[in-house]
């Protein structure tokens, strides 16, 4: 399932290209709204970074099930042999991979445009980003399946997603902030443990309830 989605994505590059362009545009928006003041920028950088991640996630994840819907393959998902939770895992992995590519690019662009030195913080930062994105993707894949069958889905998806993701965002932003200030990963242990706990809860609920949503 993940493989199929990634292959489709690689062939069409539809979502990825738009998302990368979107993040680039966001970068400009941040620059213009925050002004050229370096000090201020450094202070809000973790928040801005995750704002970029969450905005592109909302756009990218909302499209997760569009392929199936537009091509009338929803029944095919239903008829897929084996456990329905496999479909969820597949979608989750595909979303995660897509988002990580976008985020890596955004991160690289940030270092270039805003002249931030990530160097020593990078391994810890990578862990926090993967954990945070996993949480976003776990809830996102579940809610995207839900809202894809609903009127006004573009609106409903973020409305459902954002409040639920508050703990993930808080944890990720706070951990990123501490890491960028040069603190060690151990000093933000409670934050990344919270992220792990959130990821586990979301994935378990997703696995258990996904077949209920797929019913139609």
């Amino acid at each position: 399932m993940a493989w199929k989605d990634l292959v489709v994505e690689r062939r069409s590059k539809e979502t990825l290209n738009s998302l990368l362009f979107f993040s680039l545009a966001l970068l400009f928006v941040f620059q213009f709204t925050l002004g050229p003041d370096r000090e201020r920028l450094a202070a809000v950088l973790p928040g801005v970074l995750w704002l970029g991640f969450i905005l592109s996630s909302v756009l990218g994840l909302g499209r997760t099930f569009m392929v199936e819907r537009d091509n009338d393959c929803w029944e095919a998902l239903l008829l897929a042999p084996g456990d329905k939770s496999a479909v969820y895992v597949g979608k989750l992995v595909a979303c995660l991979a897509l988002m990580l590519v976008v985020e890596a690019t955004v991160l690289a662009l940030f270092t270039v445009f805003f002249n931030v030195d990530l160097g020593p913080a990078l391994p810890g930062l990578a862990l926090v980003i993967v954990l945070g994105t996993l949480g976003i993707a776990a809830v996102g894949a579940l809610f995207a399946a839900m809202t894809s069958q609903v009127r006004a889905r573009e609106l409903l998806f973020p409305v459902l997603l954002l409040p639920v993701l508050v703990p993930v965002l808080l944890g990720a932003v706070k951990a990123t902030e501490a890491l960028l200030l040069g603190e060690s990963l151990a000093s933000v242990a409670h934050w990344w443990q919270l992220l792990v706990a959130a990821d586990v809860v979301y994935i378990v609920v997703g696995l258990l309830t996904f077949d209920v949503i797929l019913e139609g």
Partner: protein
Amino acid sequence: MVRVLGWFAVVAVVAGLAMGFGVAPREATQGNVQRIMYLHVPAVWVAYLAFIVGFVASIAYLARRRNGADHLAHAACEVGTLFLGVNIATGAIWGKPTWGTWWTWDARLTSVAVVFVMFLAYLLLRQAVEDPERSARYAAVLGIVAALNIPLVHFSVYWWRTLHQPPSLLKPGSSSMPGSILTALLVNFAALALLGAYFVARRTRVLADEAEAIA
């Protein structure tokens, strides 16, 4: 049965008012403003109780697919959101004279606000999905996610910042409250719990009637 519950709730609310305004003493530093606590604190307890009911009912619906469980979950989450709204509003009214501000981004205020928005989204999803059976399934999933998310929200926001006075009642060691205030608080809690149960029961029945009328 439901009507009897309603009358019990009325009696309990009258008793609660009598306790809050009559029996409980005037608080020394905050004055009469403190009396809003008899509504403020029980409201949030009842709201969380209602969310627990909604959580259990959501699981029960997914397991058994009985419409009754769905109506109960819907009603409980609605009433929970209402009581949480009461809690936030009374908190703001209390906060203005006491803290000097209607609102502050303190840990417990923030986490309650996040939970409030989360369940508003739940009610929004209920409205957005037209097919009643699908609406029930989706809402049950969201109800489970939202309920499990409550502790995560609390921990994350608590670590984020805290300034609120620590809870005076549910903490280790003996309670720091004078007996009459504590009694008034508990009587009001019982009153609001009965009132909440009555609302949930009535609302469940209305939802069932509505579903029947459509079918």
